[in-house]
């Protein structure tokens, strides 16, 4: 494979559709995984944005990577390892870091530790190098039927859980004081959301890799909030953007010999740039027509 790669020009290694028809069935599972992951990522991302948890996502993904690497070394199920790592990290962050400043320092402490553990496990792992690299930067054909089944189960849990807590969680995220005054259990919700986030990250690590989880858990929601403030349209757009990035990335990566993640991250980033540009135009013209108070909104 490496010998072949050196014979063709570099651009053909990035985009090559010559044997597309034969390759497509091989990635059926990856496509299903991508669809599920994008759905979860888009929805979870909305709350990651509202709760300012981008750094936590990154921290959880490193621990998830450590769990998956350890699983690889110990020859147990990689998905299970990723989930255990994620949940341990999510619980640690949820328990120890209720305040934003505590949280960030705890994540900063956990993250390199997790990454170090993961590197150690991979260094000791005697198997193929592609498997190792895949956990960091994403892999495309390694999704077997059992793993798709596990991802579907996680999707049901995360999406179901989010739908159940959606309104109180929104209340607690945007308006914690008033939510607490109205009896919303803000601390319990915060912890519950960290667990859902951990599951979503464990799923994402296996498709896009630990280093690039943010591209599906944050970028789509961040792009959506640039062009809409509607509680219905932001999640819908975030899911659409995530789906376009994930499916588009997998299809583009299919004929190429480089990992899947650069495609997903690039599409997701381009969507974000376009939304930012649209959002700027919209912001300059005001979000809505305000007959007498356009200036007032800007003065703040």
């Amino acid at each position: 494979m490496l010998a072949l790669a050196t014979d063709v020009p570099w651009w053909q290694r990035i985009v090559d559709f010559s044997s597309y028809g034969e390759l497509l069935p091989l990635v059926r599972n990856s496509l299903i995984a991508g669809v599920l992951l994008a759905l979860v990522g888009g929805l979870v991302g909305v709350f990651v944005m509202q709760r300012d948890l981008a750094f936590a996502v990154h921290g959880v993904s490193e621990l998830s990577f450590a769990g998956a690497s350890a699983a690889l070394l110990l020859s147990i199920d990689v998905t299970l390892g990723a989930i255990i790592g994620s949940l341990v990290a999510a619980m640690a962050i949820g328990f120890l870091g209720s305040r934003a400043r505590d949280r960030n320092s705890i994540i900063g402490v956990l993250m390199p530790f997790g990454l170090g553990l993961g590197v150690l496990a991979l260094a000791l792992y005697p198997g193929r190098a592609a498997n190792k690299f895949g956990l960091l930067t994403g892999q495309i054909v390694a999704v077997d039927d059992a793993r798709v089944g596990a991802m579907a189960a996680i999707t049901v849990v995360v999406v179901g859980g989010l739908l159940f807590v959606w309104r109180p969680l929104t209340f607690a995220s945007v308006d914690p004081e008033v939510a607490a005054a109205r009896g919303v259990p803000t601390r319990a919700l915060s912890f519950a959301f960290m667990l859902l986030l951990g599951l979503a990250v464990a799923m994402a690590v296996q498709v896009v890799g630990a280093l690039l989880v943010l591209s599906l858990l944050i970028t789509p929601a961040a792009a959506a909030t640039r062009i809409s403030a509607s509680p219905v349209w932001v999640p819908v757009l975030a899911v659409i953007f995530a789906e376009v990035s994930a499916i588009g990335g997998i299809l583009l990566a299919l004929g190429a010999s480089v990992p899947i993640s650069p495609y997903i991250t690039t599409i997701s980033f381009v969507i974000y740039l376009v939304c930012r540009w649209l959002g700027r135009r919209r912001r300059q013209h005001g979000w809505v027509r305000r007959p007498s108070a356009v200036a007032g909104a800007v003065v703040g």
Partner: protein
Amino acid sequence: MSPVLELAGASLAFGERVVWSGVDLAVQAGEFVTVLGPNGSGKTSLLRAVLGQLHLTSGRIAVMGRPPHRGSRSVGYVPQQRIVDPATPVRARDIVRLGVDGDRWGPGHHDRRARVDELLAAVGATEYADVPVGMLSGGEQQRVRIAQALASDPAVLLCDEPLLSLDIRRQQEVTALIDTTRHATGTAVLFVTHEVNPVLPYTDCVLYLGPAGHAVGAPDVVLTSERLSKLYGTAVEVVRTQGRLLIVGDDGHVHHVEEEDE
């Protein structure tokens, strides 16, 4: 008529430190009660007790004749204004909507639009209903907050320093709106503030929590040099000038003074 909010011999202590004790207060429907006092005198703790978030050390507290409990729809809460990131995807109408059903679990399928529009109209916020809250001015945000607090038709509206960081004109607008609201809906108001002048014209009753005791009564009765000196345990002078009220301590420190309106 039975009071909507009643405290009888209410005391609160954190360990050894007694915050206030023996507070008797009966608030009737539509009454405007202003809670004054220096920092640390337990004003916010009083609100938390009414919300059911803090338990009294002794005494009794009742909202509509029953002990307060978390999530009671009889109590509305207006917090102080805080900075919201302009990119937060929440519009004014969403804030109000959260007041209507933000505490309900599971997916929502009821259309609350009419109710939200009605609440927005009642506080004069219809014009910016679809603007993200982070892009509203402080005064506009507080109007939206009031609409949110009114969503559950509360018997008591708790206002926790809602004027903080607003300029004088906005302070007057917001207090006038709260006054109009209590007349229109009959909700009682418990208004915690350290700035007495914006609320003085509307205040029926003052609860002054001082370091050396508390006092309850009409503003003219409580806000006197003699009474406040007793509450502070040190010489305090109440000065009335140009329709405004200044409270001056013997260390020369002046309480309750705002910057001049431009």
